[in-house]
């Protein structure tokens, strides 16, 4: 089966599957990064993606989201200098009100139509609804598991393949022991390696929330009756928002999460504008709520460096 790559949790995977493609979360693990078409002072995740996509990645196509300037330029660079891949840009609104939902449902219809042409297979509405049901089942199973306190590094490892994970892998996720460690919120954009979570947990923390792009920021439920495109648009837009969205819910959710932990680890790739701006508000929030904050900036390197270990260790030794 042909695979379709995606990079963002706002992409409704149900549509990709209903078109006969296999969605594949793109988190390349090689050290290679593009520095010819894109400046070295640019999001390392985007540069790693471009290097991966320009080589033989084995995927049939990719769906981008206009999530940030980095992704938009990646979309431009890939189109101009690479011709084999089928590329779609999914225009996700930043708002989640009814007008935005209406807009997004039309975008999804268009996306579906484009996939239909590629796969030469019509997207049957019933089949799409069935996919939604399957995904709902998986989402429910996964969220139930989360309540029971699984080991977060294992959760992240499984989530790297996509959210919601296949329910068959869930029983394999071990639970964490009761070890009275400091509860932390790991928040940020792309968290490429579960090694980071492992390191946080080895050095004295307990990752309670994974508010990251490669984490659990998916919708918890999609309505199963009625127009599936509208339902998908609604559920995906109203899911826990990321920093890109213009949604007051974001701050409320952050505040709630921070109140339930003892410290915050903010994990961003270098040059990430959305999150670096959010850092201003996050710092103020943490200060007001008296919670220590550690900001880790990464070069999107799958091998976690010693300097990162030192920082995390010092954070736990000093602050908590």
């Amino acid at each position, binding site marked *: 089966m042909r695979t379709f790559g995606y990079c963002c949790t706002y992409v409704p995977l149900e549509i990709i599957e209903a078109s006969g493609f296999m969605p594949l979360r793109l988190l390349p693990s090689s*050290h290679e990064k593009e520095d010819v078409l894109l400046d070295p002072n640019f999001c390392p995740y985007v540069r790693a993606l471009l290097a991966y996509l320009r080589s033989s990645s084995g995927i049939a196509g990719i769906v981008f989201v206009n999530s940030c300037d980095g992704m938009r330029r990646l979309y431009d660079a890939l189109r101009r200098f690479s011709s084999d891949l089928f590329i779609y840009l999914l225009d996700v609104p930043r708002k989640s009100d009814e007008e935005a939902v209406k807009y997004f449902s039309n975008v999804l219809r268009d996306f579906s139509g484009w996939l239909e042409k590629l796969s030469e297979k019509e997207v049957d509405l019933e089949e799409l609804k069935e996919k939604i049901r399957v995904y709902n089942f998986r989402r429910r199973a996964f969220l139930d598991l989360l309540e029971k306190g699984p080991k977060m590094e294992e959760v992240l490892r499984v989530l790297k393949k996509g959210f919601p994970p296949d329910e068959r892998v869930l029983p394999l996720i071990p639970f964490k022991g009761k070890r009275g460690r400091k509860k932390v919120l790991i928040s940020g954009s792309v968290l490429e390696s579960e090694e980071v979570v492992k390191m946080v947990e080895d050095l004295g923390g307990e990752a309670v929330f994974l508010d990251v792009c490669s984490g659990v920021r998916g919708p918890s439920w999609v309505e199963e009756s009625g127009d599936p495109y509208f339902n998908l648009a609604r559920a995906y837009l109203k899911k826990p928002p990321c920093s890109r969205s213009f949604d007051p819910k974001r701050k409320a959710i952050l505040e709630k999460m921070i109140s339930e932990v003892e410290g915050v680890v903010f994990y961003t790739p270098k040059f990430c504008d959305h999150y670096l701006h959010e850092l201003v508000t996050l710092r103020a929030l943490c200060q007001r709520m008296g919670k220590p904050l550690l900001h880790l900036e990464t070069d999107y*390197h799958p091998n976690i460096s010693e300097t990162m270990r030192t920082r995390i260790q010092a954070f736990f030794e000093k602050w908590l």
Partner: protein
Amino acid sequence: MALYAGIDVGSRTTKALLLNDEGEIISYHVLFTGADPKGASFRCLKECLKEIGKSLKDIEMIVSTGYGRKLVNFATKEYTEITCHARGAGFYFPQVRMVIDIGGQDSKVIALEDGMVLDFIMNDKCAAGTGRFLEVMAQTLEMSLEELAKEASRAKQAVPISSMCTVFAESEVISLIAEGISREKIVWGLHLAIAKRIASMAKRLPQGRPIVFTGGVAKNKGMVRALEEVLGEKLLVPPDPQIVGALGAALLARDLKDEGNRLNHHRTD
């Protein structure tokens, strides 16, 4: 005989070179710039003249280049190192389409066609990818630069150096030494790291061949080997790569005289 001078005032070394009317190299000299670039450029030129028993008044035109070019107030004109290195490389290899110059404190890649600069990339913000990087590493490994170059020219294996930055690379090397990794592997790994940085600069330019390698670091046969391996082809190295900038400046000085002649000719018409 009429002489044309080129002076390349770098932040570490200053080079001066004299050409005759036929465009042949008559003499050249290299010395440390120190804290007084203007004084150094003057002294360097005087050394060249002393070698051939001539004086300043025998020089028709002087062109200065390099980081301190504006301080050479006795120069007729100044051109950037980009134009000068392109011109100088073309003296030895007229078919040159790309020049890689690695100096003490900066590195650059120049794309040329028919002797004209098409495009260029400069790295003058960061020590990684320059002679300074090798100096720092030589010190860390307790080797002289010559020993470093020799080791690199015959090394068979490398350990990958992942740090982008000279300072971090230094710490990385110290850890590698502590781990017991052989000097051969570290040295070769360092040279390959520089070569990769240069290659990524070169990739952004029009890909012309052949490539000429200039600058003080081109005297390091290990660096030549590393670049050839990373770029996948043989490089052309001039007999004394360090003076290519000064040579280019002197050639431009001679060009100025030709232009002057053409102007004069035009006026008498």
